[in-house]
């Protein structure tokens, strides 16, 4: 046979199940830890390896998402004396400063790689049945919580907060959050629109 054994579409077929609006957002489970050692000592359902992997993921995000200040004094004004460090980003007269990471929030198991990996076992995959049949699709569930660093402000040392200042917990352990409210953002430095100009000028590109 010179052709594919099957052809299937999972995502291209819109169904009502994909109409997930923000107001209908489901709360999601996450876990707050102050350190990977604490995670490894408390958690029975995940491995110590996972604890360290989550910690490293949060650490990697930290310099991208942490709030940035032009100097150390301004940073310490919000986060407390000795609680700030130099950020890798530079401005014209030196480094930006950012608060130190005080803990991290681990997302759900199926969602550990950064936010959008659906569990293949939960995906309903149907072979396209053509004009006579129903072509199906599975909802692309992207409602997970991204593993991320947490911070503590100067005037509220008891509360873990996200980089965008959303309080998530007063102690370590499981928490229930709205994923959209804890979605970390790092875009404040990015330039956009550097690709696409020639397409706009020529109006012809594919081939």
């Amino acid at each position, binding site marked *: *046979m*010179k*052709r*594919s*054994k099957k*052809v*299937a*579409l*999972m*995502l*291209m*077929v819109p169904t009502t199940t994909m109409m997930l609006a923000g107001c209908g957002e489901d709360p999601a489970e996450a876990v707050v830890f102050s350190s990977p050692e604490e995670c490894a000592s408390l958690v029975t359902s995940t491995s110590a390896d996972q604890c360290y992997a989550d910690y490293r993921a949060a650490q990697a995000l930290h310099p*991208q*998402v942490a709030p940035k200040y032009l100097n150390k004094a301004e940073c310490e004004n919000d986060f407390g004396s000795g609680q700030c460090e130099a950020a*890798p*980003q530079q401005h014209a007269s030196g480094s930006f400063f950012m608060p130190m990471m005080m803990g991290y929030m681990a997302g759900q198991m199926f969602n550990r*790689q*950064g*936010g*959008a*990996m*659906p569990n*293949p076992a939960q*995906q309903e*995959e149907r072979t*396209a049945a*053509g*004009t*006579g049949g129903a*072509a199906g699709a599975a909802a*692309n569930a992207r409602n997970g919580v991204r593993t991320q660093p947490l911070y503590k402000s100067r005037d509220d040392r008891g509360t873990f907060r996200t980089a965008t200042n959303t309080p998530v917990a007063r102690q370590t352990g499981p928490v229930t959050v709205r994923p959209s409210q804890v*979605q*970390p*953002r*790092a*875009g*404040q*430095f*990015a*330039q*956009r*629109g*550097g*690709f*696409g*100009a*020639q*397409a706009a*000028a*020529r*109006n*012809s*590109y*594919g*081939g």
Partner: protein
Amino acid sequence: MKRVDTVERPQWRDYAERVGFQFHTFDGEPYWDETAYYQFTLQQIEDDLETPTEELHGMAMDLVSDIVRDAEKLRQLAIPELFWNHIYNSWTNGEPHLYGRMDLVYDGKGPAKLLELNYDTPTSLFETGFFQWVWLEEKIQRGELPSGADQFNSLQDKLEEAFRSLPLPQPFYFSSVSDNIEDKGTVDYLMDIAQQAGMDARYIAIENIGEHDGQFVDLEGYPIPGIFKLYPWEFMVREDFGKTIRTSNTQWLEPSWKMLLSNKGILPLLWQKYPDHPNLLPAFFEDTTQALTKGWVRKPLFSREGANVELITEQGENISADGPYSDGRYIRQALCPLPTFRDNHRHTDSYTMIGSWVVGDSAAGIAIREDSTLITKDSSRFLPHIIVD
């Protein structure tokens, strides 16, 4: 190889729209056309199309090794010098490539002739891999085609296998120009297959890609580790973010060395390296002091969908297609006219071209396009095909 009239499936347009094939009709003219199909023998497919496709692909890949080390050839292809290193590194590091399509002249006998390689941003993928496949399955179910009818079309299987096996970082992004529904349809199809292969696939419009600190970032500001872009390399290297390509760690599909093969200058370079190869047409870089003569075609180095192609037939008829690519250099290629087949539905003759897909390094199926002129364009109709012995 013959063209056979057949009846259209009732409600195929509704079905097309349900599965995301919004561009089945363009400006009121049919794009997907199932009033007829092409029929091949297995020998025609295997000996005249599949085998030469893989041979031509291998020849083109061998040529990449030559070009990345040769400043004169890089200049002939108008590759900006700032990107020579990036291309050399992407080739010598073995950065994987996903797919390409070569366009062939073939009439059922004799060697197919290579018209050009679409190795950077080929489209008509969904029509080939999915819609054409479903068409055959349904025609067999309806008893309108013999149950043993086959099709040269392993495109979706091979793409899924490629997404499973290629070393691609996660999450992996897919990008196209935001307001082009044909390109978005192609990217949606690739993302769908990538997700079926277990990848974390995400969409970002090409205009929304961000740059920060020498890295490309997504809409939330996170670095883009890998991205498929349905956007020409020759545009990217000349736009504002071109400089960031050289500093970023982003892995590209297609990789930057593919810009050597999507360039029409590859045709004269192939002819230099493999003169008189049965599947090649004579081709040369243009000497602008020489007027175009009978039996020759003129093509811009950078052009897509037949745009800005001009030719003079043996009878002296001058045929050309308008387009936006008139600002660069050109090559000349000997004219090998597309064969004509009678279209009884429209009472005209159609010029027929065969697009032959390559996934990784394997031939993966064909797409047939028909036009009322010798120059196949983006508006040319797409017809399905079968194999019957």
